[in-house]
């Protein structure tokens, strides 16, 4: 029995904690009574566990009402707690007062599944905008997703700040730059931001519902388009979750190729972000230099693997493309070139006092706040929290690769830039190691048929951070529910907290330093 399960058994008593029989090969699930759902959260928090995701399922096809799930993480262990909400009483005890991350997960559950978190302090809908019919719950099985939704009258109650000299700046959803849509509302006094509230959901495309209409193979393509910049990360998490449902073991070579794609995606995005951060403090030189390096990497991807962003190169059971001898040499040479170029640029960055002046102490997210909010990925690592799935929950081949995880403690924009710089260097090293080790052999295997009522789970460290997928198969062995948790779903809370006391004109650079996904959050 796992550490986290032990904690629960000690706290709640053995008869209340059942192994649910829903174990996938990657995670265990325990079933507890609904009344103990919040108490279980309290006990796990006391033991140092963090809430990683919370979601609901419509299990009426199995005639067992609705399921409510909470996924906790402690060190290298994940534990899923499940409880049932019967159809005649669709509610569950809220975890929000214990875990800040639950704040939006639960609003989303209420909005899209119509299962109500009792005791939640904020009943406003999330993702579901105010002009949706109140009783439209798209994730329910009874909901017909093909019909357009009518618009109704409605208003969103923003958090307001009043007082002499306080003013409000509404921004979006159509932003000034070439970025995704969302609405930010600032309350400010003079130049200082008093509060920032984000309203997202503008790019909600019904992705989770769409999964349920697709075959297991088609769904991999959809996963690759949850967040276009993290196409490898999302696709990889999805296929690993699917593979975990059947215990399917993919060829070694495919594992290493997948890691190669993942690290290339990390480098490309970090290069883009570093350029964008510098551009926002008027250091355009760095943007152009970084985007040149990024473009050259994308072209190599195109030349060797047939897609600039490696979309659909990861498939259930392996990879779509292989790497030949010449390609192997191309990447090796590219890494030598990139390392040299990048080090030259970092030396320039380091020596530039005016950039440092703008980035240091800007947008601080303290370690304490980051911990309370349950931040993940590079945002957590920039605020002093050592967290990386490649180390804590290593999937092959990361069990063979020793990943050095850079951690900075300042929690400011500068720290987030430096974590990216160090991660680029580390990914170059990892890619060399992958090339050195790359086993020979096949790159695909056949995915066994998926049985009804099985669970799949996977956690992958994408370039933003931990991506989670949880999949349940239905009575015919189809997709009954696919829960997607992009790192942004948690980290958006951090952006709103780091901005307090900063000046309005520094928001863009704080935002770039987080570079969250809107599409991955809105789904």
């Amino acid at each position, binding site marked *: 029995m796992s550490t986290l399960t032990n904690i629960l058994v000690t706290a709640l008593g053995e008869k209340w904690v059942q192994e649910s029989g829903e174990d996938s090969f990657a995670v265990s699930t325990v079933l507890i009574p609904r009344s103990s759902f919040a108490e279980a959260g309290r006990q796990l928090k006391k033991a140092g566990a963090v809430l990683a995701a919370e979601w609901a399922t419509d299990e009426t096809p199995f005639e067992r009402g609705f399921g409510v799930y909470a996924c906790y993480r402690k060190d290298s262990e994940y534990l899923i707690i499940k409880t049932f909400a019967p159809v005649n009483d669709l509610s569950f005890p809220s975890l929000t007062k214990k875990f800040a991350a639950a704040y939006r997960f639960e609003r989303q559950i209420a909005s899209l599944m119509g299962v109500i978190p009792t005791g939640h302090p904020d009943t406003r809908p999330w993702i579901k905008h105010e002009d949706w019919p109140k009783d439209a719950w798209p994730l329910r099985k009874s909901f017909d997703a093909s019909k357009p939704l009518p618009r109704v009258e409605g208003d969103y109650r923003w958090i307001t700040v009043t007082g002499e000299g306080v003013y409000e700046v509404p921004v979006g959803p*159509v932003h000034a730059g070439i970025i995704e849509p969302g609405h930010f509302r600032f309350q400010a006094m003079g130049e200082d931001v008093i509060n920032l509230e984000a309203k997202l959901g503008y790019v909600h495309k*019904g992705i989770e519902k769409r999964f349920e209409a697709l075959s297991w193979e088609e769904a991999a393509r959809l996963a690759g388009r949850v967040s276009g*910049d993290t196409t490898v990360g999302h696709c990889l998490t999805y296929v690993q979750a699917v593979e975990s449902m059947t215990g399917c073991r993919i060829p070694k070579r495919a594992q290493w190729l997948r890691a190669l794609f993942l690290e290339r995606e990390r480098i490309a995005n970090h290069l*883009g972000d570093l350029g964008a951060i510098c551009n926002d403090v008027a250091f355009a030189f760095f943007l152009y230099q970084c985007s040149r390096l990024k*473009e050259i990497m994308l072209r190599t991807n195109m030349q060797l693997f047939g897609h600039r962003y490696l979309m659909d190169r990861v498939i259930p059971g392996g990879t779509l493309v292989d790497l030949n001898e010449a390609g192997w040499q191309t990447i090796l040479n590219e890494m030598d070139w990139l390392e040299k170029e990048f080090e030259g640029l970092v030396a320039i960055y380091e020596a530039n006092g005016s950039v440092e002046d703008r980035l240091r102490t800007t947008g601080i997210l303290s370690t304490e706040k980051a911990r309370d909010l349950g931040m993940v990925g590079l945002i957590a690592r920039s605020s002093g929290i050592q967290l990386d799935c490649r180390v804590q929950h290593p999937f092959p081949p990361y069990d063979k690769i020793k990943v050095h995880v850079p951690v900075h403690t300042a929690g400011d924009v500068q720290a987030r830039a430096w974590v990216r710089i160090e991660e680029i260097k580390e990914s170059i090293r990892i890619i060399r190691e992958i090339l050195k080790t790359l086993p020979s052999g096949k790159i695909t295997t056949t995915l066994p048929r998926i049985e009804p009522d099985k669970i799949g789970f996977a956690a992958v460290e994408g370039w933003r951070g931990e991506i989670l997928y949880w999949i349940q198969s239905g009575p015919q062995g189809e997709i009954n529910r696919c829960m997607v948790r992009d790192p942004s779903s948690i980290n958006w809370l951090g952006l709103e907290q780091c901005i307090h006391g900063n000046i309005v004109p520094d928001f863009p650079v704080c935002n770039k330093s987080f570079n969250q996904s*809107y599409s991955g959050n809105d789904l």
Partner: protein
Amino acid sequence: MFRILHQIFRTGIVTEPIPPIADPEIEKIGSQLEETIRRRFQKSLTIRQVDAGSCNGCELEIHAMNNPIYNCERFGIHFTASPRFADMLLVTGPVSRNMEIALKRTYDVTPAPKLVVAVGDCGRCGGIFGKSYASLGGIDSVIPVDVFIPGCPPTPIALLQGILKAVEG
């Protein structure tokens, strides 16, 4: 400062000529695009990009058009922060239900004559997201479209070709 200058000189100009195009509909692009923009838009085509629900993939390639290798500004193309200054809307899709009103408003405040270019497979028909309660499908289900640029995502070259096609009318 010397390091920056040294790096700039060492890098040199990396901007590439636009390669010949496979699409027979459009024969010449680079100089022709520049020529058309000079003639019709007083040397400057101003674009407002609108993400109406995309996965952010198309945005990556639109960004890449601005990198020093494609350097779209050499043709007089630049991106503006406000639709009120725009000659063209470059819209990525599918149009999500929650962006429909914002997209319509953006279109309405763009001064006529205006061009609309729909980017990507999703901008054409909704792509893998299809039509549903949350996705209205292609851009032309909400605003009139002049040119569609296919691809998932379309490459920077394909984007430049599509823009040329739109300005040539």
